[in-house]
């Protein structure tokens, strides 16, 4: 019984510390007082940034694929070596 009371008390204290969450509303999307990179987007230059980051991400992921393949080859090599005989 005491345990249950204690747990109930814990729940009471939750409210004390509950955080007020600031909701993002539709107004925030329309709030023109806040400066955003609107001009930059209107000029279409944002696509340059997206393009550059996308290319770099693509390059890095390709690199990861190449390393992955190399590891697979290494695994095969070791597998065959241990099943047959020791070479080198």
């Amino acid at each position, binding site marked *: 019984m005491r345990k249950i009371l204690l747990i109930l008390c814990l729940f009471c204290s939750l409210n004390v510390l509950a955080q007020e969450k600031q909701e993002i509303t539709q107004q925030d999307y329309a709030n*023109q007082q806040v400066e955003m990179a609107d001009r930059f987007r209107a000029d279409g230059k944002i696509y340059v940034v997206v393009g550059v980051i996308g290319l770099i991400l693509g390059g890095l992921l390709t690199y990861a694929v190449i390393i992955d393949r190399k590891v697979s080859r290494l*695994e095969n090599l070791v597998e065959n070596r241990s099943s047959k005989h020791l070479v080198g």
Partner: protein
Amino acid sequence: MEKLKKHWWKVLAALLLFYTVIAGLLMDAPRLHILNETIRALHFHVPMWFGMLALLLLSVVYAVKYLRSGELRHDRYAVEFANAGLIFGILGIVTGMFWAHYTWGKFWSFDPKQNMSAIALLIYLAYFVLRGSFEDDHQRARISSVYNIFAFAAMVPLLFILPRLTSSLHPGNGGNPGFNAYDLDSNLRMVFYPAVIGWFLLGLWFASLRVRLRLVQDKLEDNL
């Protein structure tokens, strides 16, 4: 086709990351004071912490597995997941500092969230120092597995409970009513959740490469 069956999650990681970059930069974002366009850093900074948590959770799972089975293979998994998790954590704290420089005014304002996450990372760094101090494989694996459990148990309150009890500049903590990662609006969520999964899968991919290399190394050392 068989390859796709085995590697589908890597393809998924790549697709989600491309989506994150493209949609994260192009989609409509709420116009908020102070944050301005930097709100988009949300899709990159926060997933680092989620990714870290997931990788470190995997690490502690394998640490427990090692303690139960005594198989060194499990220890290899544990250490490489911890490695990847630590890298995510370092990226998280560095990107956090960079973001804070523009929104909080200073790289490091000794905010509880910053301090606690630094402590959590130091605890995990000590894990690697501890590992380096043993000669014997099994001794290293056993003691560091026990430490791994302690480190994880210490990290969770450091990152997610203690900063919430005091006032903090970080959103979702203490008296600060900033946006909360779990109550984002639906537009941000459409990029944020895929981003979390994408970054985590990338960490998993890198960790799996390291694990496979370690297992190859183990095999070679046994043979020699």
